[in-house]
């Protein structure tokens, strides 16, 4: 965008939000060029609206001016979902962060997109309710971003992902209209399920301005247990054995040997250092049921090769067990200055062979790969450890990532379970969808966004536009303590 165009656009946006909340200073633009992925690109203008109506006017101005618009909120996307790869306007929701209504009568909450996920559950807690999807970045990510990516989390195994909990949306369309879709407080609405379509569309169709979510009663008791295994294959088979019993835990998380070593060094969670794999399992329910299920799962774990099973006897012990898992990503700093996280999915039964193949990739390439993941639903998060200052390492790591996603797809899985396609995997999407599949998706997108201005450059492959700068490009300053001390876990 040239200077004169930018000034004209800035002036129009300032008419909407005021002088203070639309800006284009190059120094400030650098603060909005990145998210939690490795890629960056500078916006031309950042705008911070306060109301749905302001959002609608901004969207309309951008559409009329044919300027790309990228929504951004917590900016915790691991897939470059909020990187403004084509420049233009970044719209952020820092001022739209209110829980508008808690309606326990209808089991709904109405929130603005900038509400932090954890803040919603905290607001609901005094009422005895919570919001079930709990992405691991829940202390930073927002409901708007969760809607964009259809975010998951460790407890999706039993409670489902974002789309299962969103019943209505208010969205600003490129036409400038503000439309309310879905049943909202009702279970469903007549007509096509636009809510279901928009959730997970990664901001490529419309900008979400308000969200209706289901709320559910807090479980009376959560029972957590740790099971120790000699290797990941035995642990994976134990997961399948648990599923076969008919017990559906709220969460099944797995950590491999390398992760355990990093975690123990960082947070002393009490995982045995000689373990080949650790499973964390959780059930919730009324006390007598949770207790019984905990014991039954412990037996299945032992019968299927666990060398040790420990049931948390109280909340303190439970928190201690989770602490290691929650700190897993931060703990990687103990092993390596940088890591690259993947988000592949395989059918649960393909876990052992997939993990073996990832292991083989690690041996062949010499890069260490940790595995910390949601074993219950086959959602892998391999972490490739590397040193960004070593020439060629980042490029090699990207190739490893590509190979891992390809083998997930070949195993009947997917290239992303919860992080989204974003910028990162727009070529990898071809591993799971044909041109015909993508063509239908493209037609659907153009119904909303005929000029392809909404979060452009995301989701779809091959538009030829590349990020203007990679964070790991040579000479770029090294990040201090990668996620050190952060409570980032996925």
């Amino acid at each position: 965008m040239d200077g004169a165009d930018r000034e004209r656009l800035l002036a129009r946006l300032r008419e909407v939000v005021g002088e203070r909340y639309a800006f284009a200073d190059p120094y400030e633009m650098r603060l909005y060029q990145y998210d939690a992925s490795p890629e960056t690109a500078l916006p031309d203008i950042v705008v911070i609206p306060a109301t749905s109506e302001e959002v609608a006017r901004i969207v309309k101005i951008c559409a009329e001016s044919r300027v790309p618009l990228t929504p951004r909120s917590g900016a915790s996307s691991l897939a470059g979902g909020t990187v403004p790869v084509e420049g233009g306007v970044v719209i952020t929701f820092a001022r739209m962060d209110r829980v508008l209504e808690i309606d326990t009568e209808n089991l709904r909450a109405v929130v603005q997109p900038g509400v932090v996920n954890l803040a919603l559950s905290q607001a609901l807690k005094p009422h005895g309710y919570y919001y079930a999807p709990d992405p691991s970045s829940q202390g930073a990510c927002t409901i708007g971003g969760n809607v964009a990516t259809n975010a998951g989390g460790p407890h999706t195994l039993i409670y489902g992902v974002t789309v299962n909990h969103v019943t209505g949306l208010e969205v600003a369309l490129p036409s400038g209209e503000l439309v309310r879709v879905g049943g909202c407080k009702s279970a469903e609405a007549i007509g096509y399920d636009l809510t279901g379509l928009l959730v997970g569309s990664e901001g490529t169709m419309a900008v979400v301005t308000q969200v209706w979510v289901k709320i559910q009663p807090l479980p009376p008791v959560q029972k957590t247990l740790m099971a120790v295994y000699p290797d990941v294959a035995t642990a994976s088979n134990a997961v399948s054995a648990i599923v076969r019993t008919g017990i559906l835990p709220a969460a099944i998380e797995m950590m491999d040997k390398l992760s355990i070593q990093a975690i123990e060094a960082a947070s002393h969670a009490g995982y045995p250092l000689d373990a080949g794999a650790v499973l964390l399992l959780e059930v919730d329910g009324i006390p007598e049921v949770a207790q019984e299920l905990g014991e039954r799962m412990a037996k299945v774990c032992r019968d299927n090769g666990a060398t040790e099973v420990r049931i948390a006897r109280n909340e303190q012990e439970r928190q201690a067990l989770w602490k290691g898992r929650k700190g897993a990503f931060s703990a990687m700093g103990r092993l390596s200055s940088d890591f690259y996280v993947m988000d592949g999915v395989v059918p649960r039964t393909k876990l052992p062979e997939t993990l073996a193949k990832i292991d083989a990739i690690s041996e062949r390439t010499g890069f260490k790969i940790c595995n910390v993941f949601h074993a219950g639903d086959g959602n892998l998060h391999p972490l490739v450890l590397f040193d960004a200052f070593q020439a060629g390492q980042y490029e090699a790591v990207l190739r490893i990532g590509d190979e891992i996603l390809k083998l997930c797809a070949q195993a009947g899985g997917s290239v992303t379970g919860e992080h989204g396609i974003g910028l990162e995997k727009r070529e990898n999407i071809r591993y799971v969808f044909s041109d015909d599949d993508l063509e239908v998706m493209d037609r659907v997108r153009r119904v909303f966004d005929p000029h392809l201005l909404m979060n452009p450059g995301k989701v779809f492959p091959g538009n030829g536009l590349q990020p203007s700068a990679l964070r790991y490009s040579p000479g770029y300053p090294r990040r201090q303590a990668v996620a050190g001390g952060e409570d980032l876990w996925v």
Partner: protein
Amino acid sequence: MGVKAGPRVLPGHQITGADQHRLSVDDLLPSKIMHPGDAEDAARGLRLCDLAPASVVVWGGGTQMRLGAPPRRYDIAFSTERMTRLLEYEPADLTCRVEAGMRLSDLQAALGAQGQRLPLDPPHPQRATVGGMVAANTNGLGRARYGTVRDWVIGIAVAYPSGKVARAGGKVVKNVAGYDLMKLHIGALGTLGVVAEVNLKVHAIPESKATVLGHFEAAAPAVAAGLQLARSYLAPAAAIVLDRRALWECGLSADWQWTLAVKLEGYAREVEAARDQAGGIIHDAGGRVETADLPPTFWDAARDWSAPDGDVVLLRAIAPIASTPTLSDAVPPEASVIIQPAAGVVDLRVTPSSAAPTLQRMRSLAGDGGQVVVASAPPSVKSSLDVWGPPPPGFPIMRALKQALDPNGILNSGRFVGGI
């Protein structure tokens, strides 16, 4: 002057007189029939229809053909009856992939052999197909606990009038690659494409189940008790409030004015605790817990009650659950009713003459936050009713989606919301 148009040649196979009547929709008869063997075959068939162009009505088991406005035109009966295979099923993954024409009861039997099930219970599973369940978004009585079709479909293959088969989603339970086009087709009544294959999540059959019955002198306390159960942690698998006539129609010939029937499922201890809780709530609401022997077919009959055969008019209201009492109060005395308080669903069977005024009254009570549709009616009654009600917000987008995926409007033309 000019070229005289010849008679339009319709694609498809000749249809027998018997099939013509079997496959009639709102008294309209098809001229030809297509019954593709798989997804690709379906797409090829649709392409021919699109070129003709010929208006297609898609058929599964036919249990929901009374839903929707009468078709604008009807040339081809497009049946999924040959697409009945269970394509993949891995019990340890809790997923399966099936062809759209598979009967629900056949699917449940295959899953049941492994101790699993699809926890959705649409009416008439012996006839209803998986594709029909998706297209009509039919959900049984367990929706408050188990969710609806959209919560269990993880992937889809759709045949489009372009002649292409396109997929969305996948075979894994957690997947955010690409757009969730499953949602677009669920409840779309086949107006955007023909659902050819469906990938589903499944789960284990609960180890224990029980039913608690409570009877009340009035609807309000029964509904209130149902709502209280819905908001509790031990939510039942189903909780329905029936008037006396509906109770009888479900095979329980007790002389109770209003009945709250609570179906409990889960782990054994959970069901025990839930039974105590349900009994307590019924008692506190002024009802009496009954120990009558439940006919084994009771829950199946209650499930099928909302998809009546014959000339019954069925209205369905869906509203925020806190509005259920208001909607329940508005049920006219000549109607019979099954209310799902926890889901905000009120199903009414009304007489043809009272259909229009009841529909109007329920719509005004449901307001903007709810909806009331004519879920089933004979053609003579349907022609005088606004089946869907006013188009919802976002309707221009819906119409544009239809235009994008079915530009010639050959699929179930006119049957859906707003004349789509």
